[in-house]
Each structure stands twice: as structure tokens, then as C-alpha cells.
């Protein structure tokens, strides 16, 4: 699992800036190396010369010496949708935590819109327009649905808006109504988050995200535990965020059919490294991915 080459040189020689072809780090393990044939320019990928929304270089994180994410480098272009797959424990959530600043990177660099944010705290990154959801629903259980959206709207108005202790809290009526409409939660506006069904909680997570209108959205298994019945609506919602609003989205998901309909590119993680990053078709065709992730068809 350890990668001596990258440990010695945390930022591998990367293709020149603006190269539309995603960088796939070579791994030391020849068995799992079999790199995906460098994909053709992908729809939505950054045009040559433009600064990518997100750029990772040699990003890594280890806990007590054990590497959990190793040497991940890639660029995400404006308006792109990248889906992450990989076996359990591959490091997908950990990678999202590194990008959003929940964990400090052990080595490597994270750039958002060309600015180096590697050492910035969570809230500073969020203020730059980086929004995310969590693998297990992370909500304010004692607050109502509308309150969630209001708080998010307030936060989006900048931190100073929240320090106005002498003012009455604004209602943000228009924004709240819009967002709840869009996420089909309007009828639950006054329900406590703890009383929502699983699928509704997932929608609420998205609502909180949407109202703050982030440039880059990280979604961690938004469909986990959602019953088959609710999957299509949620999928449609995510699609509209991506397509209609033109947001850049990174998403981890095990539901293959969902992400195949959404993703421009597919990233495969394995043992903390980026095994492949390419068009869905190319990735699905790859035997290494088949072995590592999909297994025999069920």
C-alpha cells in the first residue's frame, strides 16, 4: 500500500497547468497500476489556459504514520461533474475531508480558483464557495427545516451579517420558499429535522447547500440508505443543480446507475490512491476497476 516513490516526492511531476487531461499518478504496485488510457478531453473540463475550479497536487493524509490518502492529483474544470467510486475504505470520504478542510493535509496542495487553500480552516474554504454534505446526515436535529435554510441563507450573506446581535434575525422568506420549493420540502417547513424521513433528510442537506449557492459542491453518498422509490427524485434534483445552475460537483456514490447518468468523469479510488479518472465508459471497461470495485456482476 505504501508508495515509496510518492513518499519521497509528494508532488509528482505533473502535466503542465491547463492540461485538460487529468493527472493520474503512477502507483508503485504494478498489479493495480494498469493506468486507464489517458481519456480524451472530457465534456466540461477546463478549457486550455483557464484556471481550474479545483486543483489537487500530491494530496495526502496519514494517521499515526498509516497513509489513508496518498498522492492524489487532478484538476476539476468549471461546471464539471466528477463521480468517485471505490471499495469501502478506499479513502473517498477522507479525500473530501481534505478538500473541505475537515482534516489538515499531511502533504500536497489544494487550490480553489487558483488560490492555495491548503492551510485554510473549514469555514474559510466554505466562504470561498466550497459546500459539502456528509456521508451520514449531518443536520441540526433540534431545528426546523425552514430554520436550517434560514441559517444557511444568513451564513451565505457573509459572517458580518451573523454578528448583528442587536438586530432581529432576518426571515429570508423569498430564499427559503424558493429553496424549499426546489427541493420539494415546502410542506415540511416547520417539521423538526429529527422527525424527517431518511430521504427528506438527504433533501434537506441539499437545500442547506443550495441556499448558500456554492461554486463547488461535494456530495458524499447522497443516496446512502435512501429507498429505491426516492432515488429518482433525488437524482433529478442533483442533476438540475449541475445542469441548470451550472455548478461544479464532486460526488461519492455506490449506486452505479445513478452516477452513470450524471457524471462527466468517473474517478476510482483504491487504497487511498486515485486509480483512474476518465470517462465513465472507459472506466467501466477497465478490468482493474472491475476487479477492485465491481466484482462479479450481481
Amino acid at each position, binding site marked *: 500500500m505504501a508508495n515509496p516513490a510518492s513518499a519521497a516526492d509528494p508532488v509528482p511531476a505533473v502535466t503542465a497547468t491547463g492540461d485538460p487531461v487529468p493527472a493520474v499518478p503512477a502507483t508503485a504496485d504494478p498489479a493495480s497500476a494498469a493506468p486507464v488510457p489517458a481519456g480524451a478531453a472530457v465534456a466540461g473540463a477546463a478549457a486550455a489556459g483557464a484556471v481550474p475550479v479545483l486543483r489537487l497536487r500530491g494530496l495526502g493524509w496519514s494517521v499515526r504514520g498509516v497513509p489513508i490518502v496518498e498522492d492524489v492529483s487532478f484538476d476539476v474544470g468549471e461546471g464539471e461533474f466528477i463521480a468517485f467510486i471505490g471499495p469501502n475504505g478506499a479513502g473517498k470520504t477522507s479525500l473530501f475531508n481534505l478538500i473541505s478542510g475537515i482534516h489538515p493535509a499531511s502533504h500536497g496542495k489544494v487550490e480553489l480558483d487558483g488560490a492555495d487553500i491548503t492551510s485554510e480552516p473549514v469555514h*474559510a474554504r466554505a466562504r470561498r464557495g466550497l459546500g459539502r454534505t456528509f456521508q451520514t446526515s449531518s443536520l441540526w436535529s433540534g431545528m426546523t427545516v425552514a430554520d436550517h435554510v434560514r441559517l444557511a441563507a444568513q451564513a451565505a450573506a457573509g459572517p458580518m451579517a451573523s454578528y448583528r446581535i442587536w438586530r432581529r434575525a432576518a426571515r429570508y422568506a423569498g430564499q427559503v420558499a424558493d429553496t424549499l420549493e426546489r427541493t420539494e420540502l415546502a410542506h415540511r417547513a416547520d417539521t423538526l429535522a429529527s422527525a424527517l424521513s431518511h430521504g427528506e433528510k438527504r433533501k434537506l442537506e441539499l437545500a442547506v447547500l443550495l441556499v448558500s449557492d456554492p461554486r463547488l459542491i461535494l456530495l458524499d453518498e447522497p443516496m446512502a440508505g435512501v429507498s429505491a422509490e426516492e432515488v429518482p427524485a433525488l437524482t433529478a434534483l442533483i442533476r438540475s443543480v449541475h445542469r441548470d445552475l451550472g455548478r461544479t460537483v464532486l460526488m461519492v456514490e455506490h449506486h452505479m446507475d445513478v452516477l452513470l447518468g450524471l457524471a462527466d468523469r468517473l474517478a476510482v479510488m483504491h487504497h487511498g490512491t486515485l486509480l483512474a479518472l476518465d470517462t465513465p465508459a472507459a472506466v467501466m471497461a477497465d478490468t482493474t476497476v472491475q476487479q477492485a470495485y465491481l466484482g462479479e456482476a450481481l
Partner: protein
Amino acid sequence: MIVLLVAPYSALPVPGLLDGSLGSPGSLQLIALCLVYGALATGYDLLLGRTGLLSFGHALYFATGLYATDLAMLELGFPFLVAALFGVGCSTALALLLGSVSLRVTGIGFSMVTLAFAQAGSILIQRNPGGVTGGEEGRAAPADLLPGSLVGIENTANLYWIALAYLLLTLALVRWTVSSPTGRVWEGIRENERRVEVLGLRPYGFKLVAFVLAGGLAGAGGVVYLLLTGGAAPQAATSDATLALLVMVVLGGSGTRWGPLLGGALYTWAAHRLGDLANSAAIADLPAVLRVPLSQPLFLLGTLFIAVVYVLPGGLAALPARIRAARTGSAAAAHTPEGGSA
């Protein structure tokens, strides 16, 4: 509320609850103390119930207001009003300083750091540095520097008004700030701090605002307490004092509008009146097995407290809701459970 407004003019005896009529100085003093503690608990709940911060050192800011005001008069010769402003200023500044340090850690670590600071403050006061604090003896407030209308038993009603004003101020301030944009963030922090961060807000600053506000309110409480008790004593700074605030808040129901007030008043009333009960003739006549425990006010308070914890989870403020739930619950149980799960 209306009862609180007419209290000083009333000669109504309230047997059992109060010793003497409602308007007598002794009763007014006790009610005023109840109001002050009710307000202190309400301010403390800004941390505990509203922002989810368990501070074990809140008494420090109370004691700072108390001692700083007293010492400003005694040592610096400030007139009362200036000294009071100085006292509130000191406690606010101290809360800002220590809050900015202790809020760097979270969870039980935060509780313990606040405890450590408060313990240090308590030790300093006990140690009588430079003979200033009076050590275990405390310092009496100088009557000549206090306004004449606040000195003497015939002016107890004025002290009562001040206590009531302090309570109203605290209630209003807590209510106002809780419904301000900052209050909304506090609520978010209480429920899930990480999630607030992900929205782009740094919880630290908001927690500090709550901490400083609560510290300043506690300092103001110290000033009122100084007027009521005519002096500063080291008991005010002990960790027991913070623990008492915690007990009050929980007794009443944390995070509710009236709960902490209720809890603070009830606790204070019990602490004072249980002594009388413990010393009453009725108990002196009991056989030793009953008499010995019942003659200890702290024993009564402790047992009462345990009883409340068991019988009234959620505190006094949850009582009406519980009664309602019990009523409708039994009614619903009688019907078929058609509505089902939500």
C-alpha cells in the same frame, strides 16, 4: 409578573413560603436574591442551553463583578455608579480574555479549562493578595460611598427594584440576542458545530460573543449582589457556586425562556428556607433517625434535587408540556393508533 411588581407594597403573609409578610424587608431581600439568581441562571443558560457550552467557571465572572465593584470603592474611592461600571467592565474584559483562550478547546476540555481558570481566581481571592480581597473574611462594602437610597433596611424595596430591573434586563437581553442573527448561529452551534463551519461561519467568534455577553451579565449580577448583601465574600467565587448555577438551570429546564429563572429562584428560595425548615420545632421533635438527616439543609436540598431529576426530567419548564402529554397520551392510547409514525 404582576405579583413581582406589587410585592413591595404588600403586607400579605405567605405562610410557609416566606417568613413574614411579602413586603417585609426580610422577604423582599429573599425575593430579590431569588430574582438575582434567577437572572444569573438565565445568563448562564446563554452558554449552556443556547450555545451548548458547559462552562464550569461562570462564578468567576460573577465574583469579578462583585469584587471589582467593591474594591473600586474601597481601594480607589470610586463613587458607586462608576465602580459598578468598572466592575461590569472588568468582568466583561476578563470574560473576553479567558474566553478567547478557553474556547480554543472544545467539549470536556473547554469545561475543564474554564474550571481551571475559575479555580485560579477563587484561590487568588482566598489568598488575599496584598490584603486587598480580605481572604476568607471578604470585604464589606463602604456604606458612605453608596447612594443613600440604597443603604439601610428601610430602603430594601429599592434594592428589590434594582434586582427586578436586573432580571428584566437579563431576560430581555437573552431573549433579544437569541432571536438575533447571532442567536440563530448559536442554535446551530449547539446542535452541530461542524455543520456551522461548513457553512462558512467560524464558531469560535460566535461562542466568544456568547461567553462575553454571559460574563458581562454575570458581572452585573455581581454588582446587584454586592448591593443586596453589603459585601463581597469568597464563597461567591468557588466552583460550588458554578455548580449551583448548573443545578438551577437544569432544575428549571435549560434552553427554555423561563426555566432558568424558575430554577434559580426555586433553588435560592430552598437554600434559604430549608434551613428554617431544618431548624423548625416540628423536626426537633422527630426521632433521631429522621431528625438528624432532616436537620441538614444541604441534605434536604440534595434529596429534593435528586427527586426533581427523577420526577421531572427536562426541568420545571417541561412540566406543563408533560402534563399535557400525559393527558393527550392517555387519551390517544384509548383510541386506535391510526395516525401512526411520522
